[in-house]
């Protein structure tokens, strides 16, 4: 047990790791062993600290968060932004998830990235990411959170563009950063509004002052929450700012697991849960949150149906699952949203790492035969079950979890969100629609996950005869973390078991002190009895049907390898091209903006109007006068004399009376 005051250690360890690895990265000579020890080591140390703090909190659950001020950051008049951490039930949960899942992914990376020339740089970035993520979840006020908020975006940018020599990777990183920035704009605007209205940026003070200082359901609180949610859509890849996340798969796969599945992208959900009182006070915004979540869940799931890149499927799946979480927090089930965040961290990290393991194997196989086939295309896989049994079984577990099959973890969390949305429908009927969307998304989720498993692991192998001999299971340093995540995916639901399963909503009770402020304004009464059972049964049924359909639809048809595959047509093409959203954004926003900047503003206004007309124009006018003057200089002395005499006469006229 560790006192909460020592929470800064959890941040300091990865920070030290970042500095060490960063220094090693700048050296010409690789220091693989040192990096392998330092990189995951600091994470494990941070995890140990987190566990200690957690047990300390468990023994004596506080009603007020423990504040750990570090130093005064921006003291200006009555504004006194302190760099401070707060340890409470919510931040502890996040702390555990970040350091725990983070440790596993760091370990996995040791195996996955070992041969990369940028190994030390990779771990430096990864450690730095953890630093910022911890600052994000621990920050006791919005500016501190914002350090982490932007910091994780930076690390995401750096890691997506890790292999920066490919323009596509660098593009993807930049896109992620800029889209996140659009969201950050929202967070900033929300901060300004909060400061004006409440005179504070501390979470504790916001929770205390908001009920009195803001009108529930009023325009101000709605605006604040909308701005906050804009930030969440950027960070957590919701409509309309989701397009960066699939592109972000350009980064190394463990990065996708850590940043783009388990931790960073869930920051938006965390932020909503953290400011739950505001969202609870703004039912309109909550409905929007839930609605965007539900629509995103369904929308992304449809796209995932026709993706061939194994990571792209998982990316859209992540977008879709994040939609679920927002559906949850939008339905005032803040604990439910966090619950799904936790279980999703387990099984999605597992899925990504499993995919990483598969890609690793495929990559090595293609590398061995000097083939340039796409190691991530599922059409080139198939039948990997024989070659990678551990990965196969673990990914199957994760699939069952995400599909919502009891008793796996995803079942409980997903079910709770759907039930909450259904329950909110009693107050606002539009939530029934959201519920339906969620259910449909569940069906599609099960479908595309079954398709993924079937295409990858079942059926015949399509990688090629020569390559087949080089397909091996990953080493223990990679399968070990997978195994742990597999266990967590199975039993993860235990942290918040519902009553019908013999539990008592432990997580909900644990988070009670944090969500209490919001609960005063919006509280979900989960359905009981037959309704509950019907909902549960429906969800399970949908999941099972989806799995079955996906399995059958994939295996009954013969899948040709990528190089022989016919081009998609019709709806499949639209889905494969992600509804052309990227193209639409490009044509509607990016290109016009660049055109406006280049042609209108720069060439037109700056060079044409201001410089050309005004500045050089005045120069031209004075030169014109100068030319006129020089015309008078004929060089004929007589003319000068005439001028001179006329002037002299003029003066004489004035002098002689």
């Amino acid at each position, binding site marked *: 047990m560790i006192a909460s005051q020592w929470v800064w250690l959890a941040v300091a360890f990865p920070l030290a790791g970042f500095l060490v690895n960063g220094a090693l990265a700048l050296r010409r000579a690789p220091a693989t062993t040192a990096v392998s020890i330092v990189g995951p080591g600091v994470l494990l140390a941070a995890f140990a600290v987190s566990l200690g703090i957690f047990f300390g909190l468990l023994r004596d659950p506080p009603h007020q968060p423990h504040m750990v001020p570090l130093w005064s950051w921006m003291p200006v008049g009555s504004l006194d932004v302190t760099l401070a951490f707060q340890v409470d039930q919510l931040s502890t949960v996040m702390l555990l998830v970040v350091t725990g899942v983070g440790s596993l992914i760091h370990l996995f990376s040791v195996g996955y990235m070992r041969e990369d020339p940028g190994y030390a740089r990779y771990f430096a970035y990864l450690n730095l990411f953890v630093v910022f993520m911890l600052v994000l979840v621990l920050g006791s006020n919005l500016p501190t959170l914002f350090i982490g908020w932007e910091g994780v975006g930076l690390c995401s940018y750096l890691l997506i563009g890790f292999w920066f020599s490919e323009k596509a990777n660098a593009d993807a990183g930049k896109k992620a950063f800029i889209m996140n920035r659009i969201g950050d704009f929202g967070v900033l605007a929300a901060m300004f509004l909060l400061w004006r209205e409440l005179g504070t940026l501390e979470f504790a003070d916001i929770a205390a002052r908001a009920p009195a200082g803001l009108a529930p359901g009023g325009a101000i609180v709605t605006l604040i929450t909308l701005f906050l949610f804009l930030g969440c859509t950027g960070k957590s890849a919701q409509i309309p700012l989701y397009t960066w996340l699939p592109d972000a798969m350009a980064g190394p796969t463990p990065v996708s697991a850590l940043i783009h599945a388990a931790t960073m992208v869930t920051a938006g959900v965390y932020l909503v849960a953290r400011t739950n009182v505001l969202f609870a006070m703004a039912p309109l915004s909550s409905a929007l949150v839930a609605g965007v979540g539900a629509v995103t869940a369904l929308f992304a799931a449809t796209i995932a149906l026709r993706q061939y890149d194994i990571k792209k499927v998982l990316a859209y799946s992540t977008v879709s699952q994040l939609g679920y979480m927002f559906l949850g927090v939008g339905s005032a089930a803040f604990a439910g949203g966090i619950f799904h965040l936790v279980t999703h961290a387990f099984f999605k990290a597992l899925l990504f790492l499993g995919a990483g393991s598969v890609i690793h194997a495929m990559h090595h196989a293609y590398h061995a035969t000097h083939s340039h086939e796409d190691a991530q295309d599922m059409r080139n896989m198939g039948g990997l079950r024989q070659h990678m049994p551990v990965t196969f079984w673990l990914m199957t577990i994760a699939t069952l979890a995400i599909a919502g099959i009891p008793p796996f973890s995803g079942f409980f969390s997903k079910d709770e969100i759907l039930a909450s949305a259904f329950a909110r429908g009693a107050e606002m009927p539009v939530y029934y629609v959201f519920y339906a969307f969620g259910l449909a998304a569940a069906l599609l989720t099960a479908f595309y996950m079954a398709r993924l498993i079937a295409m990858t692991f079942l059926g015949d192998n399509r990688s090629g005869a020569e390559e087949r001999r080089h397909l091996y299971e990953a080493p223990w340093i990679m399968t070990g973390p997978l195994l742990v995540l597999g266990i967590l995916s199975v039993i993860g639901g235990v942290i918040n078991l519902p009553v019908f399963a013999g539990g008592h909503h432990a997580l909900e009770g644990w988070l009670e002190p944090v969500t209490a402020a919001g609960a005063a304004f919006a509280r979900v009464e989960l359905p009981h009895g037959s309704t509950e059972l019907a909902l549960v049964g429906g969800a399970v049924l949908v999941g099972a049907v989806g799995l079955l359909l996906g399995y059958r639809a994939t295996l009954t048809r013969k899948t040709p390898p990528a190089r022989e595959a016919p081009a998609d047509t019709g709806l499949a093409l639209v889905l494969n091209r992600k509804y052309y959203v990227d193209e639409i954004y490009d044509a509607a926003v990016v290109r016009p903006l660049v055109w406006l900047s280049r042609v209108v503003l720069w060439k037109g206004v700056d060079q044409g109007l201001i410089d050309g007309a005004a500045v050089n124009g005045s120069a031209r006018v004075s030169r014109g006068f100068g030319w006129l*003057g*020089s*015309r*008078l*200089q*004929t*060089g*004929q*002395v*007589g003319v*000068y*004399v*005439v001028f001179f*005499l006329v002037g002299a006469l003029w003066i004489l006229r004035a002098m002689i009376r």
Partner: protein
Amino acid sequence: MTDGMALLGPALGLSAILFSLGVAGVLLRRNVIVLFVCIELMLNAVNLTFVALAQLHGASGQVMVFFVMTVAAAEAAVGLAIILAIFRHKQSVDLQNINLLRG
């Protein structure tokens, strides 16, 4: 009052006539040498004024005439040298052919 003082007005009038004649010459002639001659004429007109007013103001007026003469001599020397140089260059002393000052 001496005799000369009664001549102040007529002397100034004569100086005006001579000066105007000089100006007319400068405007009328193109030959650079004649131009110089006319300028000398104007200087002489001014000298007359100085001398006439010296009756009232004291010897300063006469001293000024010395200075004017000195400057005139210097001007004549340099000016004529310039004319020589230009003539060598252009084979002409006609002002119309000399427009080095053209802007």
